[in-house]
């Protein structure tokens, strides 16, 4: 192999299929094997001691690491072009583990207010129990971001494509603002997946996913993943740089450098909270990753066709899809999600009482499954005000950009004409 061959940078699809797994020396198993085990026999007492002391890379206990899960983690890290990744039991766990690793009581977070309702609830209510305060701002109002940052701010947070408003965040600008305030920028990239957008390549420091959604893609496994860029300078960031009392005063940034945040999240936060991914779910999520680009291309194509159809329909009030030229986020979508801004969007039905119209529309649908998820291969529908965002007060709902009649769609891989037919007949049934 020549020197230039040795430096080849493989394409996204190649990494989707191969990254994170080398067929093992004994069996040659081509698929990633499911290591359905809790624990791993140590080579020797000395080696075991070194493992627990983090001086060896090796398997300890499946709550901390597992070879099947590790294959999933490295594959996601490769697709996001990060330094490494850590899988968690869900997307919510990925968020919480990230924040518990970075934050101390008294710290503050500034977040976009265009967030998944569960995220907002976690940030407001669960954070309060941990002594952490979150402030919410309009994602494209940079004066508001700056005004909300103070000496206690430790993290900036946003979703690549805000749920469910279809807002696209200016990641590069936000990353610069974060760095100038010694904060990592954490981006939830669930709706885009690394195929549509790679936040770390735009300057974000940590990317999160609910892998339950498009990554797994088949609606069969709950899981989450945290990806570290390895590029944030944690030298003056106490939670990562200072001696850690829960690991013999280890200084994670001094010792692990580009892997510091990730190591701390794994061997302290996930060790202590137990929010690990099961190896079987990791296996299923890997199956999803292997077709990610192909599925996302079709998801985006179907979503675009349906968004255009609805926008032209006189029965529809508005369609909030950043792929449409009418969207205020269209330019940001072209910049950050060039293959297409995902396949989840919302719209409003014209006329009548919005809550009742929304309910009748959902009842009349045949192919769209009414449930609380997105990113399935099948098309999904939900009414956020009565489900995912129902914990929010009317004021919080309005601040999150949700109106009572809003319908959210997650466009699947079905035949485009069949989806259009279903939407049309349901609109006629109202």
């Amino acid at each position: 192999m020549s020197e230039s061959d040795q430096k080849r940078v493989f394409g996204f699809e190649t990494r989707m299929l191969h990254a994170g797994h080398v067929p093992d020396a004994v069996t040659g198993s081509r698929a990633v094997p499911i290591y359905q085990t809790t624990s791993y026999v140590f080579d020797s007492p000395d080696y075991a001691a070194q493992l627990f002391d983090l001086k060896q890379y090796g398997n300890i206990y499946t709550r901390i690491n597992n070879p099947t899960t590790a294959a999933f983690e490295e594959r996601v890290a490769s697709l996001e072009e990060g330094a490494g990744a850590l899988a968690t039991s869900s997307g919510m766990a990925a968020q919480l583990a990230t924040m518990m690793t970075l934050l101390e009581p008294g710290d503050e977070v500034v977040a976009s207010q265009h967030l998944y309702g569960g995220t907002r609830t976690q940030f407001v209510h669960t954070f309060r129990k941990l002594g952490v305060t979150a402030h919410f701002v309009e994602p494209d109002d940079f004066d508001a971001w700056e005004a909300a940052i103070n000496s206690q701010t430790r993290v900036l947070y946003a979703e690549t494509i805000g749920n469910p408003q279809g807002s696209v965040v200016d990641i590069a600008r936000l990353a610069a603002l974060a760095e100038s305030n010694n904060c990592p920028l954490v981006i939830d990239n669930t709706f885009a997946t690394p195929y549509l957008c790679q936040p770390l390549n735009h300057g974000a420091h940590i990317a999160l996913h609910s892998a339950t959604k498009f990554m797994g893609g088949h609606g069969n496994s709950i899981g989450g993943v945290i990806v570290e860029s390895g590029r944030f300078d944690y030298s003056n960031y106490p939670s990562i740089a200072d001696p850690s009392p829960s690991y013999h005063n280890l200084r994670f940034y001094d010792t692990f450098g580009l892997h510091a945040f990730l190591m701390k999240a794994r061997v302290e936060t996930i060790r202590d909270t137990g929010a690990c991914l099961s190896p079987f779910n990791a296996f299923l999520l890997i199956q999803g990753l292997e077709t990610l680009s192909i599925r996302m291309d079709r998801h985006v194509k179907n979503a675009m066709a349906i968004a255009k159809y609805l926008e032209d329909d006189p029965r529809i009030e508005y369609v909030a899809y950043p792929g449409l030229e009418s969207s205020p986020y269209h330019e940001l979508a072209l910049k950050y999600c060039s293959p297409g801004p995902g396949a989840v969007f919302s719209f409003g039905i014209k006329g009548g009482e919005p809550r009742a119209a929304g309910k009748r529309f959902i009842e009349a649908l045949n192919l769209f499954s009414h449930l609380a998820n997105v990113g399935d291969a099948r098309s999904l529908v939900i009414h956020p005000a009565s489900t995912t965002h129902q914990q929010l007060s009317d004021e919080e709902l309005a601040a999150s950009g949700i109106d009572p009649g809003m319908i959210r769609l997650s466009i699947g891989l079905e035949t485009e004409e069949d989806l259009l037919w279903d939407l049309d007949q349901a609109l006629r049934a109202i």
Partner: protein
Amino acid sequence: MGSGSGIACDLSTHSLLTVEHRAKYQAPDLVRRTLGYARSVAIVGLSTKRQKASFFVATFLKSRGIKIIPVHPKADRILGEKVYPTLTDIPESVDVVNVFRPPHECPVYAEQAVGIGAKVLWLQLGLFSEEAATIASAGGLDVIMDLCIKMEYGRYDGTMRFLGMNTGILTAKKAQIGRISSSQDMHASECSILT
């Protein structure tokens, strides 16, 4: 679970170095070749403290059957190995000089590494000294900078991926027999993985 003969992608994004410097001082084939033959590593600035990065690296290399030679101005023994106050005091042959000291001190270690006939000057993650590199190269040494020798070993022996780190290694070829273990006798088979 070794990494077989797979290609290592150029992990370009996590370095202090420019593209040109990376090609020179972080080339995957240079790193791999070095790890393949290194039998003795002198560690300049090896700490006596268990929780320092250099102590992690030394513990790890020793578990791989590599002879570590601590260089420290005051200590007597570290990890059971005799300590020398400077590189030039080491009476045995040294393959790699691995440095954990600030960049402005590195040119001196480069001169000493040339003097003792080492084959490689390896400055740890976060360290870059063009002056040291020039001295070492002129003396016939290979130079690696701003990389961690433990991380690189873990990348190529396949163990780093147990912790979800992006090794950048991608291959459809079967890994070779000789999975890394803690035992000292695994080093021979390890070489076949690394080269």
